[in-house]
């Protein structure tokens, strides 16, 4: 107990330093220390409280892995191994990008939300959904909502999950486009991963089947060679072949998505998943070590004037937009799909559930903290020059330096030129989307530890490759998953679509899915404000919406278990998320400022269009009409998300009232006494 007291004191001191220091640079290790102390204490006390008191975890109760053991899908797995499995599935690009974007308000708001959000909302959600699925044979989120809340809410949750999938794929693809456009080095390196993965696929198929470790080592050697080669290609006469505009890259990605999702999985998807997973874990560990060794000071202020709105990276005020900009890392609804996927079928004992459900989410939160630290150690002038749309800072070093200096973050043009040269790029101006910023930060940290300034360009492209690689894997796997979700939904209307193996429906559903995210990607790429501005808030709203759905489900289950006295554990974060997504969604729809509200933007451009005027940044009446249509589609999507949340909340309240009226538990858990298979 004395140890825990000391840990609490250390954490409180670190948080105090982070929160109150002004005017001088705080060392990044204070944030790291505050975060780690928070995690340990939250896991030991709040996690255990949820396990024993709220959910009533029973280590003696057989889990699906025990009752339905088949050696394939249901396997009792060592908790440490399963932690890795679960963490690898939940940690993606989200916790890396969101905090980088959120740094426009300073490091403090993001840090506090990541820590408070994960402890009280994110980890609670993951843990509860894992628990609910574990008690129901490892069923998926949609089925769980149907079992506990009814058929209609189940369908609503499925529609919500599909919509979020589309937006996630679009925004991830947009980040890749922003990172690789006009960057021959980056594009060559990432393109090389396709033949490399195919070679690996053939190796594991025919040459040495199943030797995953072996082929991954070979693959990673190939990747490093591709990075080195990329530098030479970019300096050679081949460079123009790998210098694509954003629109060209957009169509290349859409075509790639459609083809990749139809190829056999062993050929491209599986081997690239090996590469991206191991590279991701390696890069995360390296980043943690790098930050610990370098102990960099945070150059971003604790708070910037943009907390009141008007920021160039994304629009709107701190509440509600910070809380949807940082989704993954604080609370991510998408995890509800993972926690009700393979993990509940692999848990050996209910006693492992807090470690897997609550613990892995804390680890993901730590990734988000590192990303925030990365963005905050850069010169704020550089940060804003990189993350502001070209419509605001222009495209030349002089215009960018002048615009960013006018924002109150002085920087000179020479620094911008030198930074671009250091990392081997033509320009760093308006490289929005978060990935290039994080890559510059990682290059800074890694080159400090290994190689010095000469290695910066290598590390920059290593970081870009690592981000692009797992985004491409997510695009590929997500398109396949989206295809099955869509077939399930279309199957409700036309049963022919249900057949997962049939060729025709699969093709139709794949193209519909690619078309859906491709549409939003194209819209984002051609958006003069950079697209991240529009798509990231939509992504955040949809992700937090799904989290609200999952927490409402958990609340209903608690009521039906007759544990309503503990329902505040899930109700409070659910209410907070409903408030954030509701306010954000409402503002995105109806805010009078065209920079925030879709409808205000549509009517501003619509009015000008009616008079035949062209408003910047559109260049023709055609583009004007497209801007208006995009605004209306975005508004429709936003309204759909709000509708999903509202419907689920209403159904949830009804289910809770119904459960309260009955004096015995009404949950539909798999009975403990069912014969052991």
């Amino acid at each position: 107990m004395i140890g825990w007291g000391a840990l609490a004191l250390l954490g409180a001191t670190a948080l105090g330093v982070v929160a109150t220091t002004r005017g001088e640079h705080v060392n990044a290790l204070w944030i790291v220390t505050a975060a780690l102390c928070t995690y340990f204490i939250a896991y030991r006390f709040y996690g255990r409280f949820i396990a024993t008191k709220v959910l009533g975890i029973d280590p003696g109760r057989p889990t699906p892995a025990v009752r339905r053991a088949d050696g394939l899908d249901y396997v009792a797995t060592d908790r440490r191994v399963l932690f890795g499995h679960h963490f690898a599935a939940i940690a993606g690009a989200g916790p890396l990008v969101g905090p980088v974007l959120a740094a426009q308000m300073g490091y403090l708001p993001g840090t506090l939300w990541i820590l408070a959000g994960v402890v009280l909302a994110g980890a609670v959600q993951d843990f509860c959904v894992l628990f609910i699925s574990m008690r129901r044979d490892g069923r998926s989120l949609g089925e769980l909502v149907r079992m506990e809340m009814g058929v209609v809410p189940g369908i609503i949750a499925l529609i919500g999950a599909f919509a979020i999938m589309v937006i996630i794929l679009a925004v991830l693809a947009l980040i890749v486009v922003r990172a690789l456009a006009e960057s021959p080095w980056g594009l060559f390196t990432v393109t090389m991963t396709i033949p490399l993965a195919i070679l690996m696929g053939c190796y594991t198929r025919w040459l040495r089947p199943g030797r995953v470790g072996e082929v991954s080592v070979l693959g990673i050697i190939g990747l490093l060679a591709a990075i080195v080669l990329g530098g030479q290609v970019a300096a050679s006469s081949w460079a123009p072949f790998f210098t694509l505009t954003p629109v060209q890259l957009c169509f290349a990605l859409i075509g790639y998505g459609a083809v990749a999702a139809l190829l056999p999985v062993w050929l491209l998807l599986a081997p690239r998943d090996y590469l991206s997973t191991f590279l991701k874990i390696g890069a995360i560990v390296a980043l943690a070590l790098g930050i610990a060794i370098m102990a960099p000071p945070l150059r971003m202020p604790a708070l910037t004037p943009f907390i009141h709105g008007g920021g160039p990276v994304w629009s709107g005020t701190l509440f509600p937009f910070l809380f949807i900009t940082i989704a993954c890392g604080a609370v991510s609804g998408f995890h509800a799909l993972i926690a009700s996927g393979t993990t509940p079928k692999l848990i050996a004992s209910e006693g492992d559930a807090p470690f897997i459900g609550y613990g892995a989410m804390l680890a993901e939160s730590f990734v988000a903290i590192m990303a925030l630290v990365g963005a905050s150690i850069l010169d704020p002038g550089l940060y804003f020059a990189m993350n502001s749309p070209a419509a605001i800072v222009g495209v030349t070093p002089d215009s960018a330096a002048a615009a960013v200096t006018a924002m109150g973050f002085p920087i000179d043009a020479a620094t911008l030129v030198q930074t671009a040269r250091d990392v081997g790029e033509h320009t760093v101006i308006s490289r929005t989307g978060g990935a290039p910023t994080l890559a510059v930060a990682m290059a800074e940290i890694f080159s400090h530890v290994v190689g010095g300034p000469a290695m910066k360009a290598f590390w920059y492209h290593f970081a870009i490759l690592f981000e692009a690689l797992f985004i491409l894997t997510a695009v590929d796997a997500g398109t396949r998953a989206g295809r099955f979700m869509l077939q399930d939904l279309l199957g409700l209307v036309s049963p022919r679509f249900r057949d997962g193996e049939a060729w025709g429906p699969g093709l139709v559903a794949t193209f519909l899915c690619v078309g859906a995210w491709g549409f939003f990607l194209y819209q984002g790429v051609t958006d003069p404000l950079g697209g991240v501005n529009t798509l990231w808030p939509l992504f955040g709203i949809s992700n937090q919406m799904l989290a609200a759905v999952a927490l409402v489900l958990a609340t209903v289950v608690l009521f039906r278990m007759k544990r309503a006295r503990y329902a505040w554990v899930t109700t409070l974060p659910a209410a907070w998320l409903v408030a954030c997504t509701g306010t954000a969604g409402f503002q995105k729809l109806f805010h009078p400022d065209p920079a925030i509200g879709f409808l205000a933007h549509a009517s501003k451009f619509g009015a000008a269009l009616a008079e035949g005027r062209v408003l910047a940044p559109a260049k023709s009446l055609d583009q004007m009409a497209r801007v208006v249509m995009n605004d209306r589609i975005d508004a429709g999507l936003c309204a759909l998300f709000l509708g999903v949340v509202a419907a689920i909340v209403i159904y949830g309240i009804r289910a809770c009232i119904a459960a309260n009226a009955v004096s015995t538990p009404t949950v539909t858990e798999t009975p403990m006494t069912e014969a052991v298979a």
Partner: protein
Amino acid sequence: MSLFALIAETARSMVGVPSYAAYRAHMAEHHPDAAPMDQVAFFRDRQQARYGGKGGGRCC
């Protein structure tokens, strides 16, 4: 489990390759009459299960 074996198994589990030894143990214990898949068939079966169907979800 030795540290190396633990790391290797965790790494395989991260990319959805479960333990073949655990599968053989299960088959030997519960289905001694059925012929188990060999290691290559097992690997292909699990690869298809992870990526080919509905279990392919991964986070943003």
